[in-house]
């Protein structure tokens, strides 16, 4: 049943300027699955993503992509494997949105040639799939935060790497677009794309993720497994220091394809109601 793990992390430790940021992290990512990394602010989620794509070197332990150590891959080799949707991005210069998405094709371009006709076709498809085709000729400097995030996602899709990494990439989206990106990610996962994301949106992470890695504020691994296993009241309190109420609903017409776990339930997390006044 289990597909081969394309990414394996074992006993990973990492310190930044003498401060331990991540401790004893171990998990694996199978091809075509969606893995969400969750935890409080400062728990090392973004650092972990940087380690996974070889931008930082582990202090101890190992990160292996198909048996090659992450930090030993060249930037080009990594870009062929992983496309990244960054957290935020200032645009000091005004590019046409289409030109900006075409930057995702950089690794495929010959030194003397610009994007080919095929590259432009891929760019336009990527824009369409993120509901941004109408932005194609707009200037990047005048996009809203949400529009820019969708364009960044389009650029990562145009890169056509088997793995997509998102670092809080839907944080600036409105409810409608957040939902459509969430569905797009699930669709991509069903079509074989591997997705590793840092997310604060517990409901949508629970809905689309096959596996969740929950980190404590000290950078320890609280749990790794299916949303069902990981997102319990006790774990969430350990991660965020808040008590939550979990509602488990059966989804109508359950058993839609592509989800390896048995769960046809949708988890709903509602923070405990705010209490006003003194309690008896």
């Amino acid at each position, binding site marked *: 049943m289990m597909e081969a793990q394309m990414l394996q992390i074992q006993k990973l430790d990492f310190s930044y300027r003498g401060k331990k940021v991540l401790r004893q992290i171990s998990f694996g990512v199978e091809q075509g699955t969606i893995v969400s990394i969750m935890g409080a602010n400062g728990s090392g989620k973004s650092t972990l993503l940087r380690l996974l794509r070889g931008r930082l070197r582990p202090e101890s332990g190992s990160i292996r992509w198909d048996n090659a150590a992450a930090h030993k891959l060249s930037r080009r080799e990594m870009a062929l494997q992983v496309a990244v949707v960054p957290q935020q991005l200032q645009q000091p210069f005004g590019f046409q949105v289409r030109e900006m998405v075409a930057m995702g094709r950089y690794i495929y371009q010959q030194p003397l040639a610009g994007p080919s006709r095929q590259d432009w076709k891929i760019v336009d498809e990527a824009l369409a799939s993120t509901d941004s085709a109408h932005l194609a*000729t707009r200037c990047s*400097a005048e996009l809203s935060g949400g529009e820019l995030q969708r364009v960044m996602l389009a650029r990562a899709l145009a890169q056509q790497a088997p793995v997509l990494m998102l670092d809080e990439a839907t944080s600036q989206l409105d409810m409608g677009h957040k939902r459509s990106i969430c569905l797009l990610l699930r669709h991509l996962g069903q079509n074989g794309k591997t997705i590793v994301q840092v997310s604060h949106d517990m409901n949508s992470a629970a809905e689309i993720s096959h596996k969740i890695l929950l980190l404590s504020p000290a950078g320890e691994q609280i749990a790794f497994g299916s949303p069902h296993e990981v997102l319990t009241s006790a774990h969430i309190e350990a991660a965020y220091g808040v008590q939550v109420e979990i509602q488990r609903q059966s989804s109508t017409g359950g058993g839609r394809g592509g989800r390896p776990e048995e769960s046809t339930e949708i988890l709903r997390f509602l923070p405990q109601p705010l209490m006003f006044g003194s309690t008896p």
Partner: protein
Amino acid sequence: MRPSVRHTYLWLPLCLLFLGGAVVAGLMYGTVPLTPSELVDILLHPQSSGLKSTVVWQLRLPRVGLAALVGMALAVSGTVFQAVLRNPLADPYILGVSGGAALGAVLALTFFSVQSYTVPLLAFSGALLALFLVYLVARAHQAATHTLILAGVMVGSLCTAVLMFLLLYAPADPMRNALFWLAGNLARGEERWLPYGAGVCVILVLLLWSRAGLLDVFTQGEDVAADLGVDIGRERLFLFCAAGLLVAIAVALAGLVGFVGLVVPHAIRLLWGAGHMRLIPAAAIIGAGFLVGADALARTVLAPAEVPVGVVTALVGAPFFLYLLRLRGR
């Protein structure tokens, strides 16, 4: 600031029109003004003798060529520095090249007789030496952007301090020459070296143009560029060396012509967007035209005396740029 993304297909004809107009003005105006028919006649009969023919063929054409070369080199290197440093206010002299070149030139003017070749030679050496020094310092930090800028500013300041010291003790005559050189001066151009300079500059510009996609990616920040597959350290070194060499050649041939490298790339971005596939050739052509036109003005305003061309580029460029900002801001 909203670049219009329409009408982009007109960029090449418009750029060439601008350059053509500037070249015609550069050939017609000066101490000896020419009518258009005279100019055409002279250009069609290269062998004819006479004062005006000599003026055009011996004086103005080489000078127009020099101005075009220097303008192209400065505008393209400015474009590259702005993209790599992600700073629209970066100019070609940001890495201390100007300080090194100025020191070299003033040394030549103060201590050597007015041998025409010593100034460009020492200015070029000074520029390269400054670049090398900046690189040596920044290398310890994998040539990180902020280290490069800081090292550049420091090397520049050091050179300026030594230069001020030299100028204090220099006799009046070389000092006047030095001031003229510091403000940018196309009259000193060494004709013999022009073809070599032009050859190297054109190759460097084509090389940078061929990496337009790389420059695009650099504007997204080094972190993002690395994720898009760029070997940051190596490519940044290549871009800095190519752009630095362009500046060194420009400075050696014409002194410190300011403003071209800052304003030209910026203006083109406002007009046609930031994509380097278009920006690099457009900057090369408009930069060339801009300096040719500015030089024509510098020769005519106080004829027969000359205004340093750097003064004209700033006097013309700054108001035009402000107008463009206002126009595009609406």
